[in-house]
């Protein structure tokens, strides 16, 4: 009996250096380039995001209110942006922003049976340019940056 216990203790000690750090197990939530926080604080988002998007869903569907702050489409646009190699993670992949957490927490979601799991407009990186609507390039007022406009204004070329 004693011998078995000792063997087990030795075994555990040997295994220790092989254990993974806890932080490696936690899902990594990517933030869009040029942004350091989400629309709400992280702890609020963690607890309440489902309520935000549920509320927004009814507002959009029934009243046609299309603000972007709590919209699922905007979550995807920001958090599941294409990587450097131009590829976008699909919902099945653990790299996908939603799936990274949901597989960790073992909570199944069915949003993406209907909703797109990736942004449609892959030029969304233009969101770094000021004064534009990044996800609706066809609606953007000006593709020029503030600085360029200022330069043009001083030259008298801009309206």
């Amino acid at each position, binding site marked *: 009996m004693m011998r078995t216990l000792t063997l087990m203790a030795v075994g555990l000690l040997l295994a220790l250096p092989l254990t993974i750090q806890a932080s490696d197990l936690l899902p990594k939530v990517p933030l869009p380039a040029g942004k350091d926080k989400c629309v709400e604080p992280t702890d609020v988002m963690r607890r309440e995001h489902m309520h935000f998007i549920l509320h927004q*869903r009814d*507002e959009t*569907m*029934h*009243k*046609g*209110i*299309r*603000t*972007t702050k709590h919209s699922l*489409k905007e979550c*995807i646009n920001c958090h599941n942006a294409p990587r450097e190699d131009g590829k976008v993670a699909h919902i099945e992949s653990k790299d996908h922003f939603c799936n990274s957490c949901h597989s960790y927490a073992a909570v199944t979601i069915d949003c993406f*049976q*209907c*909703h*797109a799991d990736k*942004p*449609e407009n892959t030029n969304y990186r233009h969101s770094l340019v000021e004064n534009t609507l990044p996800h*609706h390039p066809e*609606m953007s007022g000006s593709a020029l940056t503030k600085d360029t406009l200022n330069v043009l204004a001083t030259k008298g070329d801009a309206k």
Partner: protein
Amino acid sequence: MKQLPTDPSRRNFLGKTAAAGLLIAPGVLLHQVAQARPADEAASSKVRWGMLVDTNTCSKGCDACVTACQTENGWGGEHSNEVKSSPEQQSQWIRKVTLRDKQNGHEQSLPLMCQHCETPPCVDVCPTGASMKRADGIVLVDKHICIGCRYCMMACPYKARSFVHEELHDQKPYAPRGKGTVESCTMCVHRVDKDGTPACVEACNKAGHQAMWFGDLNNPNSDISKRLKEYGGNQIRADLGLNTGVRYQGL
């Protein structure tokens, strides 16, 4: 008897209402409607979106409106799982219909889609409230609460609704659609909310047919209302008294 003090707010209210009535002259109201609705403002019943189809100019062989709708909303297509469904079960948000007069052989071509009724039978029969009409007259399916019972498909006299039988992937972000729910023409509500025009109307104009108009039926100065006033427009199955939002000329 004690005299009750007069509540001045009622008089003020009456006065204000009278003033407001004067202010809402046609020109002022139209100015408000003509501007794009801000993203945080709900759709209003002041507007009623509608479409007008001129069957005289609608070209027989042309299906630009159907193709545009497919591209815009992502239904149909050879690469989708939808091909696994039998042809009569596949989604059809808008279809081209040819009418032939048996007596003289005269043929007419027209696009047929959800007619966006004022009193939609699909909304009447829906057991969950998924089938609904927006304040601005656009009839939609809230797929979040649709249970896929398909009563609405049976109730619709225009055969305008479809049921998705297969799992779908790569949907359009602004046109979510999935297995087990009913769908139909949304009058491109995502475009309309951004002050745009439905894809079919745009495609028809692009193809040079000018057979489709889109606009506010409540606004007497909109192109569609002016045209309807001048030439009139028929409803399909007008006998049902549904007051459709889609009207046809030359039918």
